[in-house]
């Protein structure tokens, strides 16, 4: 059946998936740069307005994952914004997120070099999500 993408239930499951991924724990052991927020742009009728996720990441652990409004998401040290279709590509591992940022398929607010240094951790965040049973709303 799957968990609806970007729902509260999906966000809770994503936190569990990150913390259950030993490769993420290793790859992100040096991550002390704070919250990473994700914004999915509005996709009517599934998302009438922009929706966000607040990921409090620290040294290989996701301390908190919760829904957040786009205005608050933009206050995070790092905020990555994309259309629904782009996030779907990321979760299906069709789009590597850092390359997606550099091509303009995703937009980064924050310090690019810090993100680049964490390229393997970013990949494991994607792997954590890709391993979930996600229900995409347009399928």
């Amino acid at each position, binding site marked *: 059946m799957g968990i609806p993408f970007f729902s509260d239930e999906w966000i809770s499951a994503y936190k569990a998936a990150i913390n259950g991924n030993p490769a993420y724990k290793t790859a992100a052991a040096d991550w002390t740069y704070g919250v990473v927020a994700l914004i999915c742009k509005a996709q009517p009728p599934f998302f009438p307005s922009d929706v966000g996720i607040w990921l409090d990441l620290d040294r290989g652990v996701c301390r908190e994952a919760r829904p957040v409004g786009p205005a608050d998401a933009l206050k995070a040290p790092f905020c990555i914004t994309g259309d629904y279709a782009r996030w779907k590509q990321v979760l299906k591992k069709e789009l590597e997120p850092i390359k997606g940022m550099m091509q303009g*398929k*995703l*937009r980064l607010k924050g310090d690019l070099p810090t993100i680049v240094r964490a390229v393997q951790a970013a990949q494991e965040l994607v792997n954590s999500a890709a391993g979930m049973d996600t229900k995409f709303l347009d399928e």
Partner: protein
Amino acid sequence: MEYPADLSFLFTSPTRVVYGAGVSRDVGIELAGLGCRRALVVTDGFLRKTEIVADVVKSLGASCAAVFSDVPPDSDVRAVNAGAELGRSHGADSIVSVGGGSVIDTAKGIAILLKEGGSLLDHQGYQLLTRRQTPHVCIPTTAGTGSEVTYFAVIKDHEARRKMIFGDHHIIPDVAILDPSLTVGLPPVLTAATGLDAFSHGLEALTSAQREPMSDALGLHAMRLVRRYLPAAVKNGSDMVARGQMLIAATLAGAAFSNAQVGLLHAIAHTVGARHAVHHGAANAIAMAHVVRFNNDVVADRHRLAAEAIGVDVRALSDEAAGLALAEAISDFVSEVGLPLTFREAGVPEADLAACAELAMSDGAIVYNAKPVLRSSEVLGVLRAAWAGT
């Protein structure tokens, strides 16, 4: 030259390119074509005193709102903020940049602030902008950075002691005016360094992890032109054919790497430049052959193409041997145009190589290197070879 069945890429190169000796006099016409009436001219203190900027201001006439000439050799946040303030106070609706890469990158930063407001640090990110920025006409006076057609701006934050890289399709300049007569005064050493910078853009675009056929075509021809015309431009700065072809090469290579990206070589050059003030083009020239050797086991077939483009006879060689021949040919080329061959000669202390390697791992370019670079020890190996010339 083979491409995979799942080849997928974006190619963007929206800049209108105007070429010819003397065409900088048309800047007013080009500006009007963009629907603009009040341009902020952005340049540096040296060029401000020359006829180059005087002629541009004259061509603009009443369309020149003000001239900002406080661009330092390395573009920085303070200059961008000050330039934007000057532009706002004079009601500028557009920018005309006249100079090298630092001037053009400063102008890109000013273009953001004139449109979005605030300070440059408010807009730190990548592909963050959502609309076209202030119209921008570039008039490059060097032939190397390709900034006149790229989506990058490298701007130093002196307080944080780091270089910020802005990458956004919305800051690609609208018009590039390539006037070879403006580059005749460039000294031989700068001609050589900027020319090798253009060559490195072509090479790294060709071998990048994001390589694609359109950038391949641009990069290969750029390398061909640089190899043929750079020695002549270094030897005789008044050679208008050589100067012109070098400007074209730089622009072609700029469009190539703005799409295919660059790799480890630029990550090294950015780092060595930031920490030890080695000219960006010279740093690329020094490390280029060593990066070719590092990548050769992954992209030897691409190195063969580059070798062929610059006239190395590789017909009897395997791809791997052709790649090594390319590295040798690059070192010979660097030497021929009078640039140093080692970071030791360029004044980089050996004791700092490890710190340079660590910093290079944070450079956005490294993501696109032909061969994935996962450990700073790999970068350090290349740096050590480039330091000693081994």
